[in-house]
Every structure is written in C-alpha cells, then in structure tokens.
C-alpha cells in the first residue's frame, strides 16, 4: 500500500476547543458573512425585497406592541412600588413570563429560523452550536416584547424607588436569561415530544388537564367578583378550593417569577440573606432551563433524527382503512389533505387549540370580568371568531405542506383550479366544524344567545369564509413558503405572508365588528345579518373570480412556487 503520510497538505488552522476558540471565532465570522450575503441577496428579487419590507414592518409592529407592554408594565410597577405593594409585583412577573413563552410559541411558525442542523457537517463544537442556537433565537418577537416589558418594569420600579435600581437590574437580567432559555427549551422539547406518538398523547392529556384546571380555579381566583346564577347553582364551592389556592400561592413564590418579585421585596426590606437566597435559587432555575435546552441540543448535535420512524406494529396499524367517497381528483385531494392534517400535530394543535381556548374565553364573559357593555350578548361571535384563528396557516399558505410534491400539481392532467377547489372545500368544511363547535362550546359556558346574535354570527361567518378563502388562495400562490409538518419551531416562515394574512383577517373581523357594533348601538341587531350577507355575496363573487383565475396565476408563478417549496429543509 502506498504511503500517503505527508502527501496531503490539510491547510487547516489550529482547531482549539470551546465556543471562543480561534476556529469557533472563524466560524462565527463565516456565519455572519453568510447571513449578510443572504440578507443582501434578498434584494436581488422583488419578492425578496418585499419580504424584507414585510419583516421590517412586522418588527416595527412587534416593537410597538413591546413598547405598549413595557409602558403598561412600567406604569403598574410604578403604582405598586409607590403604594408599597411590592409583593404584588409577582403578578407582573408572572404575566411577563407567560406572555414571553406564549408569544414565542404562537408565532413560532410565522418566524423564519435558520436551521442550525445544516452546520453539523462542519467541525462546529457543541459550545458554539449552543451559543449560536441562543443568538439566532434572540431575534424574535417574544424577546422583543419580553425585553421591553422588563425594561418598562425596571423604569417603573426605579422611578418609584431609585435605590432599588441596581438589584432590579440584576434580577431582571437573570429573569430575562431564564425566559430566553426556557422558551428555547420549550420549543426544542415540544418538537421532540410532538414527533413521538406516546409523548404526543401525554402532551394532549396534560393540555386538556390544565385547561380543565383553569376552569375549576377560575371562580376561586375571581372570588371577589360577583358570580352569575350558574356558579351559585352548580359550580364548585369557593371554600373547598381555597386550600388549593393557598398551595398555588405558596408554590409560585418558589418559581422564577415569584422569586424575581421576592428579590425586589427583600431588597426593600434590606434582608440581604433572603435576597441572596432568592437570587441564588433563580440562578439555579436559569441553569436548569439552560440544562434542559442543552440536553435537547446535545441530541441534535449528535445527529438525532426527529422523523416519525414508527415501529413495525404501528406501521401495520396504519392501514388506509377509510376513503373519501368518489374517485375523482377532488376526493383524492381532500383525502390527501385529511391524512396529512392528521399526521401533523403542530397543524392539528393550531386548528383545534383555539377551539379549546374558547372555553376559557367563555369563562371570562361568564364571570363578568370584561369591561364590555353587553358582554354576554356579543360573547358568541367573539368566541367563534377567536376559534377560527388557527386557520391562518392552512388557508393563507394552502400549498406550503406540499413540499416537493408541488411539482405534481403541474404534472397532473388536472387544472390547478380543481386542486385549489378541493383544498378550499376541505378547509371550508373544517372551518364550519370549528365555528360550530366554538359556538356550541361558548354557548354551553355562557348560555344560549339571542336569535339576532346567532343570525349576526352566521351572517359574519358566511361572509368570512369565502373572503378568507379568496384572499388565502391569492396569498398562497404569491407568497407560499414551505411548512415543516413535524415541527413547531424552526420553520422557514414568510413575514410577508404572515403580515398580509393578519391584515386581511383583521379587516374581515373589523367589518363584522363594525357592522354588529353599529347595529347594536342603534338597537337594530337583527339588521346585522342581512348587511353581512350582502358582504358575503361580494365575498363569494371574489372567491369565484379568484378560482377562475387560479390556473393563470399558478402557471405565471410556477417557477417561484417550485423553487420555494422544493428547496431543501
């Protein structure tokens, strides 16, 4: 055998180790350069430039929302600290913590994430991989909103008590670190759990349990509010649940938001040892969240594949025992859509979770905590509209799940219109089901609404469905992006699509709110249904017009569609 020693000049720089080694720094520089090139290349196409514009607008909106949250948090904090109610700061910390996590999960599929898995073929050490995951994850709406809320809190507390500035800054930094790490860990673990059937079932059960628990706790948490006759008749007795509330109150004090609040209170009391202990325990939580994220990232770093990889027994069970009636392309497409939806937990959650949340929203109306003049009267349309929020991605990116299969759309001897019509029929049926279920669930919680409210809700729905489908078809063909059906986070979402779809949905909702509110103000609510039906006629005409032109639009955008949806994950 030939001796090859010394014949190859590797030309490699000394590797070093750790996230700050020379090699790692070179890699960061390369990544920054790569991201800069991608950013610059966006402007080569009008679509890319438009996407950048949409991203800028989105972040401007997120910033405004964050500033609003920050101002609110600051005002409340100032008021609480000025009136010496420092112990109540824990509520603010809890709200910020929950919002931080919720915003991140809710917007995960709409934000673009760079998939660091592509870096694994390079000699990237784990420390760098972890650090990069954190840094890339920082550029999102939740960090912006959470960060600005913390800033508001800092300003509010400092204005009320300048002597607390130092400790508040320290605790908020620790609290922010915890939230950043926790949200990354939750997304990473959710992706892992939702990829496996058993853990998926456990997650669903836990979710339902939490929802029901909130329902049980609701009357207790609102014990100082006037109850409706429903509560008095059949609801759980407040006294029975009071020990549990006490347990919850004690427990929360040992959790990060409670600990963060405690640090400020203890600083106020000049109890240094308690303050140090609270800071220390909060630090342990930060390390814990970092550790949880680390476990997940370590598995990814080692090349874990989150594919379904089902067992043979599960394979054998997965017989296509059911079919949609008919043998034509419409039934074939509907059957495919249905099977695909049932195999994508993130999409199932997106569609059905708002429906479950309607139960909670219904409870808010039931206990009368809202400031609406006629909360019960308009609760049903609000719940129905909320229940339909989960359809944004399905309707406004209805080709996104096709992936490489988009090519078949142009190869089949079937007009694109037929395929889009099939998708619309499927999504429409699902939309009707969710709207009905939301309406029924809300009615069960709030009570049967008046006939004119039901008519107005149906009128709005008949308008909203074709309007959403018409707009959704146009946006799906012009701003499609690939959806990874197995993941919640790290999607390659399009801000342009997200922004426009939200704007259109808000407009559709706004028309409904405007018409119903005006009719209610003039005490002519029965008039809302015919007015909304007139809007519905226009929406149906728009939908049919779009359908008629779908083939021309699809063929005109064919290259871009294929390029966007076929591109590697």
């Amino acid at each position: 055998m030939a001796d090859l020693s010394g014949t190859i000049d590797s030309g490699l720089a000394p590797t070093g180790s750790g996230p700050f080694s020379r090699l790692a720094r070179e890699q960061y520089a390369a990544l920054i350069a790569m991201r800069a090139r991608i950013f610059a290349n966006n402007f080569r196409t009008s679509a890319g430039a438009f996407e950048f514009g949409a991203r800028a607008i989105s972040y401007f909106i997120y910033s405004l929302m964050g500033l609003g949250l920050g101002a609110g948090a600051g005002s409340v904090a100032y008021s609480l600290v000025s009136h010496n109610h420092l112990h109540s700061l824990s509520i603010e910390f809890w709200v910020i913590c929950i919002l931080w996590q919720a915003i991140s999960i809710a917007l995960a599929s709409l934000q673009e994430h760079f998939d660091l898995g592509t870096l694994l073929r390079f000699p990237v050490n784990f420390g760098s991989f972890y650090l990069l995951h954190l840094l890339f994850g920082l550029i999102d709406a939740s960090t912006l909103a959470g960060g600005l809320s913390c800033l508001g809190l800092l300003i509010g507390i400092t204005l009320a008590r300048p002597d607390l500035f130092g400790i508040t800054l320290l605790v908020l930094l620790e609290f922010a670190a915890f939230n950043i790490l926790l949200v990354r860990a939750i997304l990473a673990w959710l992706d892992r759990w939702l990829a496996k059937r058993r853990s998926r079932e456990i997650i669903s059960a836990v979710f339902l349990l939490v929802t029901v628990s909130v329902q049980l706790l609701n009357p207790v948490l609102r014990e100082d509010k006037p109850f409706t006759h429903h509560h008095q008749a059949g609801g759980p007795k407040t006294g029975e649940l009071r020990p549990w509330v006490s347990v919850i109150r004690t427990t929360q004090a040992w959790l990060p938001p409670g600990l963060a609040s405690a640090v400020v209170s203890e600083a106020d009391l000049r109890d240094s040892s308690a303050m140090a202990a609270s800071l220390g325990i909060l630090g342990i939580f930060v390390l814990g969240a970092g550790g949880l994220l680390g476990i997940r990232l370590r598995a990814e770093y080692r090349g874990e594949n989150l594919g379904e990889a089902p067992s043979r027994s599960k394979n054998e069970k997965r017989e296509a025992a059911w079919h949609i009636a008919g043998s034509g392309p419409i039934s074939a497409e509907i059957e495919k859509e249905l099977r695909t939806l049932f195999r994508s937990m993130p999409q199932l959650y997106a569609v059905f979770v708002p429906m479950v949340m309607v139960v909670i929203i219904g409870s808010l109306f039931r206990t009368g905590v809202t400031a609406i003049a006629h909360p019960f009267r308009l609760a049903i349309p609000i719940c129905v509209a909320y229940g339909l929020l989960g359809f944004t991605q399905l309707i406004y990116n209805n080709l996104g799940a096709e992936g490489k299969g988009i090519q078949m759309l142009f190869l089949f001897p079937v007009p694109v219109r037929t395929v889009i019509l099939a998708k619309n029929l499927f999504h429409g049926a699902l939309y009707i089901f969710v709207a009905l279920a939301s309406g029924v669930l809300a009615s069960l919680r709030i009570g049967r609404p008046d006939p004119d409210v039901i008519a107005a809700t149906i009128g709005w729905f008949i308008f909203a469905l074709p309007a959403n489908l018409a707009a959704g078809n146009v946006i799906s063909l012009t701003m499609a992006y690939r959806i990874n059906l197995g993941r919640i986070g790290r999607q390659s979402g399009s801000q342009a699509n997200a922004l426009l779809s939200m704007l259109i949905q808000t407009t559709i909702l706004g028309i409904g709110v405007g018409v119903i509110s005006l009719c209610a103000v003039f005490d002519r609510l029965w008039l809302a249904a015919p007015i909304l039906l007139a809007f519905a006629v226009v929406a149906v005409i728009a939908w049919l017009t779009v359908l008629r032109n779908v083939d021309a639009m699809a063929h005109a955008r064919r290259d871009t569609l294929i390029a966007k949806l076929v591109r590697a994950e």
Partner: protein
Amino acid sequence: MDQAAIETHGLARRFGDLIAVENVTLTVTQGQFFGFLGPNGAGKSTTIKMLTGLLEPSAGTIEILGQPFSSTALHLKRQIGVVPEGMALLGRLTATEYLRFVGRMYGLDRATVERRTEELLEFMQLANERRKMVTDFSHGMQKKLALAAAVIHGPKVLFLDEPFEGVDAIAAGMLKTMLQGMIQHGATIFLTTHVLEIVERLCTHVAIIHQGRLVANGSIEALRAGVASTLPGAESGQRLTLEEIFLSIVGAGGGEPVQELSWLT
C-alpha cells in the same frame, strides 16, 4: 416515417442573463429509448422541466405525440409520466396512499388504482414497506416509489431524470427490464443520467447537451462513427465506448483540464 413522440424547435430558457438552454431542436420518435446526456449544469433538467410543463420556455415550441404542448395541455399530461428532479413525493403519505393519490389524480378509476398500486408495490419490492410514511423511506426506496408513480397511469411518453441514482443493483436490473418492456409496448422513454453504461445498454439514440446547446444528436452508432473519424490516433475497427464518445464531444470545448490538486499531492 416514424411518428415523433417528442419534438422541439428552437427551445430556449433564460434565467435573467443566464442562458440555461439555447436553441434545442430535437426529435424523439415513438418507441425510442432516448438518452439525454450532458455534464452537470448543462441544461438537462431544465430541458426536462420544459418538456413536462414544469418550466415555461423562453422561446421555441414543444410537441408531444404530434400536438403542441404547454403546461395547460391537460390531455397530453395524461399521456406522459415523469420522475422529476427531487422526485416530488409527499412525505406524509404512506407508499400505498401516495400511489392511490397519484392514480386518482391521473383519472384512473378506484379499482384500477387499487390493482395497479398493489402490482407496483410488489414489483418495486416495496410491499413490506407499504405503510411506512414516504419521509421514512431511504433514498433508493423513494426513487422506486417515484418511478412507480410515474408509470401507474400507463404513460405513452416517460421522462426520467436520474431514475437510477441511489437504486441498488437488483432494483436497477428490475427497472431496466420494466422500461424495456414499456418500449416493446410502444412507449417512448426520455432518460437523463450520468451513468453512461446504462445509456449504452438501453438507449438507441442519444443527444448531448453542453453549456445549454445541443452538441450531438443521433444514434449511438452514428455518433461512434462520427467521433472515431475525428480521432487522430483511433485505430480502424476500434469500438469506442459511450464514455469515450461523451468525453470526446464534451471535453473538446472544455479547455485544458486541471490535472492535479496542489494540496493533495
């Protein structure tokens, strides 16, 4: 004269300033096993995309089975089968479900779809994996499934973009037999591959595209004779392989190749 299955005149495709395919004029007669060759980036996949309606030509015309073809010619799409670049599979369906879906989209009745799906899964040796989701298939299995989907409706013209890539030797042999059977039954196959031995064994005619232009077109024998006559050192009666023909034609315009890499010697 044999009828043309595929005919192009002055076919061209530009992406901005880049000319991917330029003035490609060729005829593939019915029943022909046609090899479409070229180095990486020569324009093979772009040509196939135009011929199957996945890409709009910038110029030129296409006729399939004697009729003008465009992306909206649905009656012609019914007559063609395609294994496109990237295979166009739907990852969240099982193999059975995918084939059923494709069959129905081509307008086959349910009973025919069921029968052909079963036959194809058996033939492609995917029957044991029929309930696995496509996303969990190996690359070779995905290729076999893409081929099965391309032939489920019994196309008269079959476009195959690298169909043997990643397929094991046993399956490749089986597929070759299937494709030859289709030719015997009058189908036309338009094949692109980098495996020149396969082309030499299966195809009667080849065209070579280089830098977007058609640089050779004809029967393998005709190309062999043409190239042999231009080689100064070629001995009379020497039988050139397709690889030698290909390198002679494509390599000729490629300039002086780099012989070695400085850091690997």
